[in-house]
């Protein structure tokens, strides 16, 4: 009951945040030089044509009026229609967002699967060869930009070894997973480096804690001491970091989708920015903001679940 009220309160708090995001995005897209008509008609368009199209789209009205109209439609669950694609923004997002979510979820999974055992190994072999090798490798991974890693993987595993497709999304669910593997790995590498470093540090901190010695003094099997007393406590900070990184991951997905030609929300956003497709830019940004905010909420809930000292 207590928890339910908390969740409800957090969701209500989301509303002003989203309104603010809507305003910022609205201003940003309108501050961009150019407009949808010029983008559609190209450099040699006649001013009269441009003006006519902009008038038809209602883009010649004052900005505050346009923003209020946008909000009024939003309140009715209407995100408008795409200028370029002539489809409702909502249905575009419904097609594209799941792709991005799958990509993000896959890379989050890969990142955790890489970081967890390696952090453990590095911490337990602190300052020995394994630790130095693991940390060194991740340091390199962390210092390279996502799109560059993506291109490297694409060239090697896609073009050279031909183990994975170099782009596209596939038609079946298995096909999706297959097509998304390389891009997900690309995204996962930098996240796993961040998680690995954090978790290794946390494990080293916890391993020297008195309660871990006390657990040993109780005669618990080493495995139980490691998992129940060390890892359980070390994970608290890493889970928080993980939740906060989901936003970064989504940002990375935008770039990765472009590199790997994946029809996700990220690429939709980039294309609509080029085309000055205002409704689509605003709609996708808002949806991604909702997703990120919900992950933050889940992160906070996970933290309370992991650390009873917080649930007061």
């Amino acid at each position, binding site marked *: 009951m207590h928890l339910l009220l908390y969740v409800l309160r957090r969701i209500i708090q989301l509303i002003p945040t989203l309104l603010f995001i809507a305003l910022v995005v609205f201003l940003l897209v309108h501050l961009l030089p150019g407009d949808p008509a010029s983008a559609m008609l190209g450099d040699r368009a006649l001013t009269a044509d441009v003006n006519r199209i902009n008038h038809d789209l209602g883009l010649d009205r004052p900005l505050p009026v346009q923003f209020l109209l946008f909000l009024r439609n939003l309140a009715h669950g209407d995100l408008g229609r795409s200028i370029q694609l002539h489809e409702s923004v909502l249905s575009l997002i419904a097609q594209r967002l799941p792709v991005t979510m799958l990509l993000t979820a896959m890379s989050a999974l890969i990142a955790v699967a890489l970081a967890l055992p390696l952090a453990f190994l590095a911490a337990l072999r602190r300052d020995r060869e394994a630790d130095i090798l693991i940390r060194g490798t991740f340091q390199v991974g962390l210092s390279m930009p996502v799109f560059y890693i993506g291109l490297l993987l694409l060239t090697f595993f896609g073009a050279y070894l031909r183990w994975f497709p170099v782009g596209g999304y596939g038609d079946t669910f298995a096909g999706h997973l297959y097509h998304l593997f390389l891009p997900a790995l690309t995204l996962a590498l930098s996240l796993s480096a961040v998680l690995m470093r954090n978790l290794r540090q946390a494990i080293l901190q916890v391993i*020297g*804690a*008195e*309660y871990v*010695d*006390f*657990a*040993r*003094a*109780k*005669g*618990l*099997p*080493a495995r*139980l001491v490691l998992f*129940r*007393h060390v890892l*359980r*406590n070390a994970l*608290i900070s890493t889970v928080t970091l993980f939740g906060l990184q989901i936003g970064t991951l989504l940002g990375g997905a935008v770039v990765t989708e472009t590199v790997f030609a994946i029809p996700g929300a990220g690429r939709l956003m980039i294309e609509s920015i080029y085309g000055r497709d205002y409704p689509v830019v605003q709609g996708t940004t808002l949806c991604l903001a909702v997703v990120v905010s919900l992950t933050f909420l889940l992160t906070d809930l996970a933290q309370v679940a*992991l*650390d*009873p*000292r917080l649930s007061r």
Partner: protein
Amino acid sequence: MTGGLSLEVTNLSTTFETPLGAVTAVDGVSFDVRPGEVLGLVGESGSGKSVTLRSLIGLIHPPGKVSGRVIWNGQDLLSLPSGRLARVRGGEIAMIFQEPMTALNPVLTVGLQIEENLRAHTALDRGQRRARAVELFDLVGIPDAKRRLENYPHQFSGGMRQRVMIAIALASNPRLLLADEPTTALDVTIQDQILKLILSLRDELGMGVVLVTHDLGVVAATCDRVAVMYAGRIVETGTVVDIFDGPRHAYTRGLLSSVPRGGAERAPLLAIEGTPPALSALPPGCAFGPRCSFATDACRDARPGLLTIAPDRQVACLHHDAVAANRGQVA
């Protein structure tokens, strides 16, 4: 008291590799603990008391190295494989720590923290473990045991947490309790309760106790025998009466004269001059030499070994007769 097991420690040394060279925190310490006996391990901070205790049951982290022999129940704990050592730890030899605030896992209920001990050392089933946990909470004086088992450590006061820790340590009826300054972090009134609790459990369960403390008042009130440590070595051992009535090491004498005694006639409180030496830079000869008013050239030549001067009475001082005769001034 039942015929229990004794612990025999011979030549225990614990060394830590540091960037500045090896530091010997515990240097050739030997003592024994008999069943039902309370042995006090006394000394200033950094004298090696806690490290000694942790070395006994393999709680020294690398790069620390422990050597010597710790004989318990016919086996040397220092060379026991980790699985068998785990069975001794918590089952036969339990340990309680100084800081009840940090020694309990903050994210697990205290009930679970008791139960995992029972699970490791007994064949009790879930329901029986629960019942035993309630019984233990009653034993150490935590009211409303059933409900409190569901609580987390932060929901207890300091004194109550120390009781929780004792309950956890005693869960599997250990034969020996290693207590590392169990009352230092507590209020004086709570201190007294906890010590009384440990003593009554000693009587009830017939277990031996090693009580590490820097508080001579605690020693006088609880211990049967005392071992005084200085700079990683035992410098004097004896019964509480012998040590308090006639210290034969200048350091012990200094410790005793720096304790205020209630009810005695007013006398100036004497402090031991100087500070304990750094373990990485021990003076040649007797480590206490530079702070000792009895010291002569002979003290600087070689570190004096422990001499047995009477049954249960040892001292590592060339001038122990002079100290006993109370000549010279306490430094």
